């Protein structure tokens, strides 16, 4: 990176370190932090959407839809994350290729499963065999986002389902008394009010999602754990300009700091959000008490 880095063997101290920390490999490591943050930025809303859909389905009056929602919540929450990740990504990938194969290569006469091999026509490959590496990376990243969203969506669905039930019945009945249709009650009363009850559970899910990002490593994505392990391992002078011993403790220490920083920052943000919504909630509660008191006054002493 710097001009004086041409011959690292002659360097010492900070100069050596500045060269070492700016090798292409380290830049890839720094980029991987961006990958993790991007994954979080995309996955969190996606998981919330899955959760919302799951919760709405679970409390539906149509029995099959309700079974679907409840089944989704129960199955995905019940399966260990790692098992789900290892199984689901392969199944999803092969499922997509199988569908594309059926659609794009109707003339194909060979079986798709040949012994251990999973063989689809080259036009059905996901991504195509001649696609650039970044397309493969993007596809892998997208698979990861979908998997994370499904897993954490199930937890979010359970939280939202509970939150929807926690909204006081009286609120909904009042809305009905005003002549609102069920849809309007849902949109105008239930959804705005449930967030107060959902927020503690959702913030919990967010923290777990944040901590679960190293699972990316399992999906073959070169994330921060992958690079930390590779960079931290001892390096012999034959294969690098920067030989060093076992430095894994520093690299994993850096990951530790990164995750603590992330959880601390989101802890602060979530506290503020809860405080604000809680504030609104307290105002509603006060208003309700006042209304109750007025009602009692109007009724007079018994």
């Amino acid at each position, binding site marked *: 990176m710097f001009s004086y880095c041409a011959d690292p063997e002659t360097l010492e101290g900070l100069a050596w370190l500045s060269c070492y920390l700016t090798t292409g490999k380290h830049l890839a490591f720094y980029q991987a932090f961006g990958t993790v943050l991007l994954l979080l930025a995309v996955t969190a809303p996606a998981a919330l959407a899955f959760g919302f859909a799951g919760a709405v389905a679970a409390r539906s009056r149509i029995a099959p839809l309700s079974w679907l929602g409840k089944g989704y919540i129960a199955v995905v929450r019940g399966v260990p994350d790692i098992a789900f990740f290892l199984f689901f990504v392969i199944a999803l*990938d092969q499922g997509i290729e199988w569908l*594309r194969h059926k659609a794009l290569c109707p003339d194909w006469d060979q079986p798709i499963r040949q012994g251990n091999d999973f*063989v689809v026509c080259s036009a059905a490959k*996901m991504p195509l065999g*001649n696609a650039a590496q970044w397309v493969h990376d993007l596809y892998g990243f*997208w698979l990861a986002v979908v998997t994370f969203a499904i897993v954490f969506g199930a937890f979010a669905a359970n939280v939202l389902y509970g939150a929807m039930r926690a909204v006081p019945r009286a609120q909904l009945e009042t809305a009905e008394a005003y002549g609102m249709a069920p849809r309007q009650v849902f949109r105008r009363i239930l959804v705005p009010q449930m967030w107060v009850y959902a927020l503690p559970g959702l913030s919990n899910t967010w923290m777990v999602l944040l901590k679960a990002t190293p699972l990316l490593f399992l999906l*073959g994505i*070169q994330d921060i754990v992958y690079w930390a392990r590779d960079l931290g391992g001892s390096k*012999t002078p034959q*294969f690098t300009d920067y030989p060093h011993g076992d430095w894994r403790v520093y690299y994993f220490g850096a990951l530790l700091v990164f995750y603590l920083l992330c959880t601390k920052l989101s802890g602060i943000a979530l506290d503020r959000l809860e405080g604000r919504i809680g504030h609104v909630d307290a105002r509603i509660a006060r208003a309700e008490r006042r209304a109750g008191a007025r009602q009692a006054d109007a009724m007079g002493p018994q």
Partner: protein
Amino acid sequence: MKNTLLLAAGLALAPAASFAQDTIRMGTEGAYPPYNFINDSGTVDGFEIELGNVLCERAGLTCEWVTNDWDSIIPNLVSGNYDTIMAGMSITDERDEVIDFTQDYYPPTVSSYVALSEDADIDGGVVAAQTATIQAGHVAETGATLLEYATPEETVAAMRNGEADAVFADYDYLVPVVEASGGELVFVGDGVPLGGGIGMGLRESDGDLRETFDAVITEMKEDGSLNEMLRKWFGEDTAVYE
């Protein structure tokens, strides 16, 4: 779910327009110097990378390297995530049942024990080896306790930390490690010949591709260019093809 499938189809259609010649995706581990490793600039490097590139060039193929964990390197080949494996993988009967191999491009290998001192207990002590390797299989058959790790680097680290008495790995992987240790690490006992040489792994249903690579490997053995490459990466004393 429907939406995700539509999204998938949309993503897939973008590059579908150009049906140029297929790229051969070459799977490797990227953690096994001198066979394959990630160099300082963050790209794959090593004997197998140089060899693989020449094989592709001579066969007139466009190739692209993909790294994958050793643990899942065979499952990802058979499910079609890449088309070949060049990852210091020895040809064994067990692996041959699941995938196919070209002829060997590295002669049958010798594996060795390395420890902190020459009197380390390699027959009854704790020996570290990489998961799912012929070395791990061999240690399991001796009286020693096998300690498995996901990467070869971690096996050496475990031995240095004292978690294991010795490490058992390919001789060629250990040589640079021992040299760089400045006398701290030593080879223990004699080398153990294991496996049927290192070959390129392919799907069993990919017979044509295997024949293509097989022919180029034969060609490179005959004109001496493979031997030259072996000497470059493994030193003048390494085993070469007659």
